């Protein structure tokens, strides 16, 4: 048996803007119109988020604001439950815990970055230690099952109690990575 997820739009619930809704073909045994959500632009994602759909566009701009300059193709963060009901030209990054969306905390963004660029995730943490909630990052890393990625870049250096899983990069290489990023900052 296969689980199917879709959005429905009742008369009393007009929050979901019509322009991002894609109607599914109506099956005779399903009198209620079912929709999927199609998000192809930042504006679409903003509309969906405003309607409390658990999605978030994770892009270079977000990462740059956290002090790490690296451009990449935007990723759509989406909760696992809704992943199949959301269509997008953006690559989807699934969050097991949809509660983190549509307003992710810094720790949620670190988890997203671990999935995209773990070396960058370490730099984000290093640069924002003042706002890091270590307990939340610990919890989020475990819930989102990114412990091997966190271990690879030794996030346990910053998060006491974070278990280690899998081989880590040598400290000498991480020191070099850290120094490289900081020297670039000093130049700017």
């Amino acid at each position, binding site marked *: 048996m296969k689980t199917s997820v879709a959005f429905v739009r009742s008369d009393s619930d007009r929050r979901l803007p019509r322009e991002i809704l894609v109607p599914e073909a109506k099956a005779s045994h399903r009198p209620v119109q079912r929709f999927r959500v199609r998000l192809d632009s930042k504006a679409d994602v903003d509309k969906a988020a405003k309607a409390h759909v658990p999605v978030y566009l994770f892009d*270079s701009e977000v990462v740059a604001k956290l002090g790490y*300059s*690296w*451009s*990449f*193709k935007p990723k759509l963060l989406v909760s696992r439950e809704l992943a199949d009901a959301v269509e997008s030209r953006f690559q989807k990054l*699934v969050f097991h815990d949809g509660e983190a969306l549509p307003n992710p905390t810094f720790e949620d963004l670190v988890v997203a970055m671990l999935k*995209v*660029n*773990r*070396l960058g995730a370490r730099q984000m943490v290093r640069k924002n230690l003042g706002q890091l909630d270590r307990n939340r990052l610990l919890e989020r890393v475990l819930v989102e*099952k990114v412990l*091997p*990625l966190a271990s*690879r870049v030794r996030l346990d250096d910053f998060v006491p109690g974070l278990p280690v899983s*899998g*081989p880590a*990069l*040598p400290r000498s*290489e*991480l020191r*070099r*990575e850290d120094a490289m990023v900081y020297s*670039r900052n000093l*130049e700017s």
Partner: protein
Amino acid sequence: MRPAHIRAAVKFLEGKGFDVVIVGGAVMQLRGSGSTEDVDLFVTVSDYGRLEEVLLHDTSVVDVKLGDETSVAYLKLGGEKIRIDILDPSYFSGEKTGDEFFDYVKRHWSKEETVGRVADPAVVWYTRLFVKKEAYLDRIDIDLGQGAKIEWLDGAQEIANYLGTKERIREQLRRLDELFKVTRGPD
């Protein structure tokens, strides 16, 4: 890094009579896989040998660190500084000479574009595999997540075959395969 900055770095060295091929993260950026904050450039062995004379006496170069395999220069461009890493191809050339490797890249593994002569990503991955640093394997893995093509690894192996560095690369490829198992879990 903006393509204009990559172009400026290339033009700077070409203006000094250097033969230049863009390698490193700039190539991956130009191919849409990630980005870089410095420009890595291959030059010929003889050009590498005259870096000191060229870089130390140019007022647009604000800082220089000369090394045996890689030299770093910071180029002033308007209000900004560009970091250029200049690589000696001899370091990577295995059984061939550095200039043979440079010519091979130039003839078979690069093409002229608006920013300058750009190496094929296979060259970039070859250098990353050759250096034997774990973090470079991570960079390849990250590039792949950004849409880089796995076939580029075949190209890296072809380059290694030509240079006689196959064994060295094979060990790194094995480690890369191990890394994939770690970083690509059930999700």
